[in-house]
Every structure is written in C-alpha cells, then in structure tokens.
C-alpha cells in the first residue's frame, strides 16, 4: 500500500470490490496470512458475514472435504448468489440454482453429473483440439492486421475462449457476441459499465447489480430453452448440449432446469476465466520484460510459463463453502452454517509454499498453484485454459514479440473474478 499507516486486520474488508481494483489487494492478503489466516469478517451493508481463508494448506483442507464444507448453499460472497437471497441471480424467476448447478452441488450427485461430460475435458481429449484452437487463434490475430487502437481484452483475449466454448456448446458464430455480452453482464453485474439496462440514477447499487445479473440470466435461459426445444424436436449435433439432452443419471434425464443451468455455467465459466488469464498474462509479460525475453529465447519454457501466468493472475478471486457442522480450522471455531471464502490470489502467493511468491518466474518449478481449485470441484476446463493460453502466447509472440500495454488497465469491479475489461496495446512490428 502507498500509505505508511499499518493496516489493522479488523479493518480489512475483502468483500469490498474496490479492494480488488488495486495492487494493494496483495498487501491485505499478506497481512491476513501473517496475522489472521482464518479471519472472521462480520459483514457490511452489502455482504453477510464470512470467514476468509488465505493459507494454501487450509484451502486444500476445505476443498478436499465437501461433506463438511458444502457447495450447495452458494459458492460466492457476491450479493447476486447469496444463499439468503430469495432469487439467486444465477437463476431467473422460477429457477433456483442452489443444489442444481454443477458448481453448486455436492457429491454423490456432483460426481455423477460431472461424469456425463468430463470425457470431453480430459487433457488428452483437449489436446486433440489443438489444431482447431490454433486455427481460431490465427484467425483472431489476422483480424489485427493494420489495426490501430487495439483493445487486447475485447479484440484478442476474449475471442479465443468465446469461440472455443461456443463451438463446444453448438452455439453458432452469429450468436457469439450475444454470449459475450451476457457473460459480461453476469460476471460484471456489479460494475457500472455493464449496468446500462438499469436506469442511470440506480447504477452502482446492489439492486442494479442484482437486476443486471437477473436480466442476463433470463436471456441466457431463454436462449438455451430455444436450443432445448430444437433438441427435443430431434436435432442432434456434435456438441455438449446434445450429450446433455440424452444423458441420464440413475435412469432419469436431466430436468429442463438442470439442462439450462448446465449450459449457463459452461458458457460463463468457459468464457470469463481464460479471458482474464490471457489478459493478465500479457500484462505480466509487459511488466517483466526479462521474463518475456527468457521465454522467447527458450520456447521449451512455455508450459511452465502458462502455469505461472495462471498462478500470477489467479482469475477466480474466491469461492465459498458453507460448514455443515461445527468444526475447527487453524484454531478458529467454525460453526455450522458459517461461510468460508477461499482467496486464491492469496494462497498462490503463500510464502510457506512458493519461493519468492511476488516474482513472476516463467520457469517456476514446482508450481502446484490452486488457481483451478482442487478436489471435488477442480476446474473442469483446466485443460482448455492451459491449451488456449499456450497456443495464444505462442502465436501472439511469434507475430508480435514486442507487443506492449499502451494505456490504462481498466479492471473489473468485482470481488469474484480478477478481471480486466479493457487493455489498450501497441502491437509493435509484425514479424
């Protein structure tokens, strides 16, 4: 932090989205790890109370015990998916996502639902799509030829994950912009830039955030309800929606609600996180030119560079769990019903696990970061994220090795996703 006044632990409010707009976020995490690694936050006018878990080992312990730390009552402290909200914004009217969406589910049902589609996400299955991912990446970069004023987020970073997830979901190219827009409004619902459907005077409020997310959710459900109708009428394709419509768990098909929630989750998750890893990665390569030069000089470092980008950015800022019984964590008494927020940017800079955690090191080994989570809810799309990052940076640096950030970094106002909305770049000479 710029100030020399010591920060008191009791004053730290990680729910405040403003905190995550600044680099000072990491100083707050450092203080919590050192002074109050399992820290109780009593809540404020927008967010209910929760425990902050900031140490690596503790996040592993919580993640690996879904019986004791449940996902079914909400996975975010964001007001839009609070368990006490009567209408979680992840669902529109009549749809409650809790316990019905893959990410909001506990075993054994979570295991069974995930098994319906996880064969398409294994590292080997993903690897077979490398050629296609490279073709899409080159097409995106072709679009930059002769362009001035490139916004790296909108023009490049967002385009690859968007194209890949839409293709997997059978969403035609003409509807990609809609999916991009609805994803922004869902994840960015707390950011005034995405609240333009709400009257101007109300923007920036919690009500505006909720309304923005709900409207986007409803539109997304309406879109996939249309897809479901076509599938019911007999259309089948080589995509996940076709698998889901025929899938059975214990002899029962998914309900319409479950189908729609699954589609919603995949579009959002496939879109938002990798985008921010790509953008945040380019930002890191701009801030650490020696590391970029090292990677360009030794392309065999690409795999470890990708892992380091994911650790460095930690695109998902937190996930929550709810204790199903009284328990203890690092000496703190946790009561049944308490919420625990696991802060990934913090655990991925835990001094007890990572040497020089604040150094961006493209050769970092080992690098067992937790940016994809661990255990029951380990990121289903991790293989896609890794491959998209690898191909993107290979192709990008092959063409524009001197690309630089050339303007203000506009960050997303969110305590959930460490997002970048806009990143002006200077491409430099094309090789």
């Amino acid at each position: 932090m710029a100030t020399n006044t010591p920060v008191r632990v009791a004053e730290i409010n990680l729910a405040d989205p403003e905190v995550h707009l600044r680099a000072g976020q990491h100083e707050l995490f450092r203080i919590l790890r050192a002074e109050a690694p399992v820290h109780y936050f009593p809540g404020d006018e927008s967010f209910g109370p929760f425990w902050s878990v900031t140490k690596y080992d503790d996040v592993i312990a919580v993640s690996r015990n879904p019986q004791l730390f449940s996902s079914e009552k909400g996975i975010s402290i964001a007001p839009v998916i609070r368990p006490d909200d009567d209408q979680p914004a992840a669902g529109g009217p009549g749809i409650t996502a809790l316990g019905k969406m893959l990410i909001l589910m506990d075993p054994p049902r979570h295991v069974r639902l995930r098994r319906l589609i996880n064969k398409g996400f294994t590292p080997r299955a993903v690897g077979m799509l490398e050629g296609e991912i490279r073709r899409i990446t080159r097409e995106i970069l072709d679009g930059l030829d002769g362009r001035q004023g490139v916004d790296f987020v909108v023009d490049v970073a967002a385009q690859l994950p968007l194209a890949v997830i839409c293709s997997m979901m059978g969403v035609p190219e003409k509807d990609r912009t809609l999916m991009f827009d609805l994803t922004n409004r869902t994840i960015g619902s707390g950011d005034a830039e995405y609240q333009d459907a709400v009257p101007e005077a109300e923007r920036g409020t919690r009500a505006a955030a909720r309304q923005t997310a709900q409207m986007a959710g409803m539109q997304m459900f309406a879109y996939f309800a249309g897809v479901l109708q076509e599938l019911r009428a007999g259309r089948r394709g080589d995509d996940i929606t076709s698998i889901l419509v025929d899938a059975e768990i214990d002899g029962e098909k998914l309900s319409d609600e479950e189908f729609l929630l699954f589609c919603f989750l995949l579009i959002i998750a496939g879109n938002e996180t990798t985008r921010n890893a790509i953008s945040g990665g380019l930002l890191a390569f701009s801030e650490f030119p020696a590391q970029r030069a090292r990677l360009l000089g030794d392309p065999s470092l690409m795999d470890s560079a990708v892992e380091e980008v994911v650790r460095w950015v930690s695109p998902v800022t937190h996930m929550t769990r709810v204790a199903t019984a009284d328990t203890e964590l690092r000496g703190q008494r946790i009561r049944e019903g308490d919420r625990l927020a696991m802060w990934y940017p913090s655990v991925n800079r835990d001094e007890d696990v990572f040497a020089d955690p604040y150094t961006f090191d493209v050769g970092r080994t080992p690098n067992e970061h937790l940016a994809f989570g661990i255990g029951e809810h380990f990121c289903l799309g991790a293989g896609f994220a890794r491959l998209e990052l690898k191909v993107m940076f290979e192709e990008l640096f092959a063409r524009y090795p001197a690309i630089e950030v050339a303007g203000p970094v506009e960050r997303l106002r969110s305590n959930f996703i460490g997002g970048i909305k806009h990143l002006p770049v200077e491409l430099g000479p094309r090789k």
Partner: protein
Amino acid sequence: MKVTVNHDRCEGHAKCQQAAPEVFQVRDDDLSYVLLADVPAHLKEKVDAAIRLCPRQAIDWEK
C-alpha cells in the same frame, strides 16, 4: 499396502503418473490404473505425493 484409483473421479490429469510412474499408468481411456497389486515400502512416499497432487482426489490407500 494397496492403493486404489476411483474411476468415477479420475479425469486423466496424469499427476499420479508423473509422481509415481512405477505405480500409476494413464491409458487411452483417460483413466489411471494401478500397476502394482502391492506397493513396496520404498515407493510409499511417491504414492503419497500422487495422492496429494491428484486434482480430483481420486486416489487413496485402501482402508
């Protein structure tokens, strides 16, 4: 000592194979298989690492 891989959970990340190639093998069906019916003492540490590193918590000592 016996170690097992839960195939309902395994997603072929192959972390176990990297940690203990003598014990685990990921095959074409994207599932990890245990190669040794009984894990000798000198490989115990490697298998512990595999258990710890498995992203999906699919591996455990048989109880």
